[in-house]
């Protein structure tokens, strides 16, 4: 299928200003630009994975004002004035892994890794709301994310381990 993308007229644009991983960013964007494409292509944040591009896989999950959002179902222009955190924003000084990332690494909660940033970000929101989730809560908390290769058991274990690290309060970098 070929789609004629040639705009008939000058494409309309909008000014936006937002915070991305702690830094203020201003840009002029076409309204149809998805937040996922804005972050990945224009801001170079390759941790924002673009999988299905229509809300099914969760690979593009980021935090918008602290809440998990599928960034392919939000327009960049809608993020005007918001605070965005991507997986890159979780790491500590010098790239030190966040305890959640540490836990994913240790429990082999990834194979190809395509889905991982989405899972890590979703886990961040989940643990903030429920620091000690049981399996059921973990399953529900990660229900928007799909992994095609690892299987979910190791991912659930990673979340449990990350919750333990947060309890100990002393593991890894970042702000866990």
């Amino acid at each position, binding site marked *: 299928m070929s789609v004629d993308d040639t705009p008939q007229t000058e494409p309309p644009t909008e000014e936006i200003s937002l915070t991305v991983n702690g830094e203020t960013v201003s840009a002029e964007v076409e*309204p149809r630009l998805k937040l996922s494409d804005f972050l990945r292509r224009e801001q170079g944040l390759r941790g924002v994975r673009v999988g299905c591009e229509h809300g099914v896989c*969760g690979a593009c999950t980021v935090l918008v004002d602290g809440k998990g959002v599928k960034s392919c179902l939000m327009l960049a222009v809608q993020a005007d004035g918001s605070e965005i955190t991507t997986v890159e924003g979780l790491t500590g000084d010098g790239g030190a892994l966040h305890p959640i990332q540490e836990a994913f690494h240790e429990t082999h909660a990834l194979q190809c890794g395509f889905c991982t940033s989405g899972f890590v970000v979703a886990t961040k929101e989940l643990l903030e709301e429920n620091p000690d989730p049981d399996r059921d809560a973990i399953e529900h908390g990660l229900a928007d994310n799909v992994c095609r290769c690892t299987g979910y058991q190791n991912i659930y274990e990673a979340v449990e381990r990350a919750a333990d690290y947060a309890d100990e309060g002393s593991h890894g970098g970042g702000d866990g």
Partner: protein
Amino acid sequence: MKPAQFEYHRPDTVQEAVELLDEMEHRAELMAGNQSLGIMLSTRLATPENVIDINRLDALSGIEVADDRVRVGAMTRHREIERSDALGRAVPMLPEAAEQIAGPAVRNRGTFGGSIGEADPAGNYPCAMAALDGTIHLRSVDGEREVPADEFFIAHMFTELEENELIVGGSVDCSPWPSERSGMAFDELKRAAQTWPTVSAAAAVRVDDPGAGDPTVEEARLALANAADVPLGVPDAEDAVEGEPLSEGSLEAVAEATMAAADPEDEMHADAEFKTEAAAEYARRAIRTAYERASG
């Protein structure tokens, strides 16, 4: 870029929004949580000239419980409905319906009004609103009007909403459902978070005396999602349980009445016959659960 080009409008007030709508009518699409529209834009099944983003209309967001009436603003997110204690006390069916929608990231964005406007036969709120005899509140430049939920839904993506109207919210009269002797249930058959439910059943039951061993059902309401192309009320099932304590016999009558009323479409993973049987089983479960909850 996946969506086709469009002009973006972000009104700050409801009045501004309905004026824009009035000016553009069919040339504009309203954007609420964008969890369904976003898919249509990505696949270019929707290619609107204009998008009116109503996410900054704070006046449309929130839950109000006053004088036996519950009002939910159109831009209230599923997460807020799911977690509302006020709704949990007054109409627990709504939070129970909300918490079963997709996963948290979708519930953080998706809205009550968006789901009502989409009118998917499998949608949770349309079914719950039909079960509760709810009212849908609409606004245009000409003012507000109210439409009963059972008249609002016409077919998938077809509703009573006019091109120049905006859904501002929904409301439910909760006086028939005093919490100390009423119970509600929203029960769905769904295999994965990302999919629509195969069928769902919404039930509300009020009993005479929850302290009694087998209290009598004074009033019952039942609606099903995805068992027809609109939310399906089953008055025969309600009649079958009212006026006596719930029994296996009356539950059987609920299942039979549901089977007779259901008229679902075949789907890839569930043909009409399976959906009809599932609807009957979920109707039975929802009524039973609501009765148990009403009986304390």
